[in-house]
């Protein structure tokens, strides 16, 4: 289906931005190609690997499958926007645990972890597994991701 370009105004990382694109453009590609926010990654394009995770009104969403036309005035936060005054506690926990290997999936992992901790300040192992099972890490950093989430929850960092 050929969709003509349209103008959209988005609220991204507390800033109003305007872009022109086809309305079915996934937020992921608008962020990366048009807004230069490349911290959000492409991994699968079908919302099952979690690399593209961002927040929409504080909830973790897969930006690869979220069309621009569905966002309206909802607040979008990307990895570039989580540490407003320096590093976010979850980012600090990631550093303390030395989590990343290649690092490519970690933006998405961190965004999922922050969304989890905002809803559940003291997640159990099962809660962590449930919240994080949508995020694939091919390097296999899962053990440290789990530890970092627990550290962040108990304010060790």
């Amino acid at each position, binding site marked *: 289906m050929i969709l003509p370009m349209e103008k959209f105004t988005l609220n991204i990382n507390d800033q109003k931005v305007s872009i022109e694109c086809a309305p079915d453009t996934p937020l992921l590609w608008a962020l990366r190609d048009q807004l*230069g926010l490349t*911290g959000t*990654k492409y991994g699968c394009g079908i919302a099952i690997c979690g690399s593209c995770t961002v927040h929409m009104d504080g909830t973790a969403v897969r930006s690869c499958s979220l069309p621009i036309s569905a966002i309206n005035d909802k607040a979008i936060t990307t990895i570039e926007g989580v*540490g407003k005054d320096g590093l976010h506690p979850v980012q600090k926990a990631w550093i303390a645990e030395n989590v990343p290997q290649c*690092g490519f999936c970690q933006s998405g992992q961190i965004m999922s972890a922050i969304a989890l901790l905002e809803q559940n300040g003291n997640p159990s192992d099962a809660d962590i597994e449930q919240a*994080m*099972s949508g995020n694939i890490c*091919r390097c296999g950093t899962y053990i440290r991701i789990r530890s970092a989430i627990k550290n962040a929850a108990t304010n060790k960092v």
Partner: protein
Amino acid sequence: MKPNPSNNKLFKVSRRDFVKIGALGSTGLILGIPLGCKQDKNAFLTGREDAVFAPNVYITILGTGEVQLIAHRSEMGTGIRTSLPLVMADEMEADWTKVKIIQAIGDVKYGDQNTDGSYSVRMFYQPLRVAGATVKLMLMQAAAQEWQVDISECKAVNHEIVHNSGKSLGYGYLAEKAGALPIPSENEITLKDSRDFKFISKETVIYDLEDIVTGKAVYGLDVQIPDLKVAVIKRNPEAGAGMKSFNSDMATAIEGVSKVYKMEPTAFPMGYNAPLGGIVVVANNTWTAIKARNAVEVVWDKGINASYDSNAFMQQMQRSVQKEGQIKRQLGSATKALKEATKVIESDFLVPHLAHSPMETPCAVARHNADGTCEIWAPVQSPQWVRQAVAAALGIEESQVTINVTLLGSAFGRKSKPDFVVEAALISKEMNTPIKLLWTREDDIQHDFYHSNCAQHIKVGIDKNNKVTSWVHRTAFPSISGTASAEAKGPSSDELCMGVLDMPFEIENVSCESLDAIAQIRIGWLRSVHNINHGFAIGSIVDQVAQAREMDPIDNMLDLLGSDRKIDFTALVEGFNNYNVKLEDYPCDTHRFKQVVQLVKEKSEWGKSLPKGKGMGFAAHRSFLTYVACVVEVEVDDNNNIKIPMVHFAIDCGVPVNPDRIRAQFEGGAAFGASLALKSEINVKNGAVTEDNFNNYLVARMTDAPINTAVHFVENEEKPTGVGEPPVPPFIPALCNAIFMATGKRITRLPIRL
């Protein structure tokens, strides 16, 4: 070991490599007063701002005191971009906070850059120590000259040369003076005693850590340059096959589409450099390109592999290994000993094709310039090979091609192959504009260089004294070389040295055999390569042998490894390949092998009693010159759900250069092994791969991967060996053996289906 046309000459630091540059812009007239010529003690830390001391290609010291260290190997998650620079920093007594790491472009002047085969640390540990120590000596000589004292009165301490009297000069201050000195010869160099290491064997976090967690790290997919357009390619489901016709009207009608055109596919076997080709779609942005690709209609043609069916192929290989194959290693008479055996343990083992599926799919930015040169930014494991391949494809000289290596969003061997970069370069030339080529996940999974599927048969004879007296191992798999040559009919001798011909057991009658199997799809090396298949089979059969002998599996392993000896494989196997290094330099030492086995036994509480549904399994395997023993604990519930609460690895990789990153490789290696053991499988029907994304090509998620992994080091001062690949091969059979203990079910086929 792996086919690679790039210059694989072993790097050696020779005097010739130490090209001295000295102080840039120093004319002798502009005797810039060193910034350090003030009374303030701190001021003696720095020198002329434009001073550059670059005694070799890896190390540069600026007058400001900044030390620039070249990372010439590719960073795909192993930490190598940190680990090798810290080896240099340690020997030169640099302050790590004043070190800036610079990623090398692809250039032969850096020596081997093919980041593959777990040999970065092994190959470069010693030369880079020498490089660092040379710099330190020159800085000491410069300080001694400045002070008019004997060099024995000087020592290097944290970015300064300190005199016995307490006075000191900073590296920045000394840079220009050191640059004026002759390069010392290697025999003047003294390396540090290991007790004095500041970084080696200590914990150093990766250089890019903060950039990664803040989303600032730049991978190949993130490269932005002016006027960039995005390309995707619609490919024939059968790799190497062509097309009859295509219609691009619907695609070109989409706003933002620049061009839709045909890139001629390269027929199978196309090798590793050739573009797969197909219908190229170029657009202003990624989404437009993807949508337009969906709108292209193509009538594909069939190629020579149109009838390839991986299931039928596996059955054929399985049948073939029931009979004697080409004998590649023989000792005594296995046939005779098997006849005389009181017990014979035998089993087939099957492993499917597997895909690399790195988190970052293959991608590359190429800019073909008007003057005929080409610049590339890409996540590649072998930038020199890419440089050659791009030059050849464009018909230009290598000197006209620049390969900038970005961070790699993992790779596992996929990004060794230059094909996707060559495609990007060709499209940029065609379009006369900079191009970012994206392989979507579907492209990646459907058009990988797949892991060799493999069928094996192992037969072990036990005599009346409960002694293992015969070993027959047959393996059939398509060779990696089959991707490049129709002449490759089956496993090569080099490939068989990954887990078949290097069998370490002290058994009197041995026959190691291979059977032909012809590649009918692109085959490539995947992390651990053929050790995946062979480690799985050997680790599993050995557990069955222990059961048959009514022995503890670890005692059985120690018995099979036999006496302490360095196994002379060169006497046992014609053309034995010890991971491309001399066996005498890196022997297969059964004493070291047994040490890791004993260590894992001790650390894992091996033999502890476990409730129903739980099991512990053991396996050990030497690959890429590193010894690894593994114990896996497993829980299997009534619905056959498998959980892995604990994994123990005991390893001997020589001096552990960056222990935290070694642990990370083992944690990740276990998770990677969990993917292969529990989840992943590529099937091919009618020449086309049936899986196309992570919804059907399954990989381990947090719920599947081990919950804890402990890594125990054998402490020694042996030469360091690699750790990227060695974790995977023993993990898989250890898991299978644990499942056997928990459920009584023997696993002989991957992925595990209970």
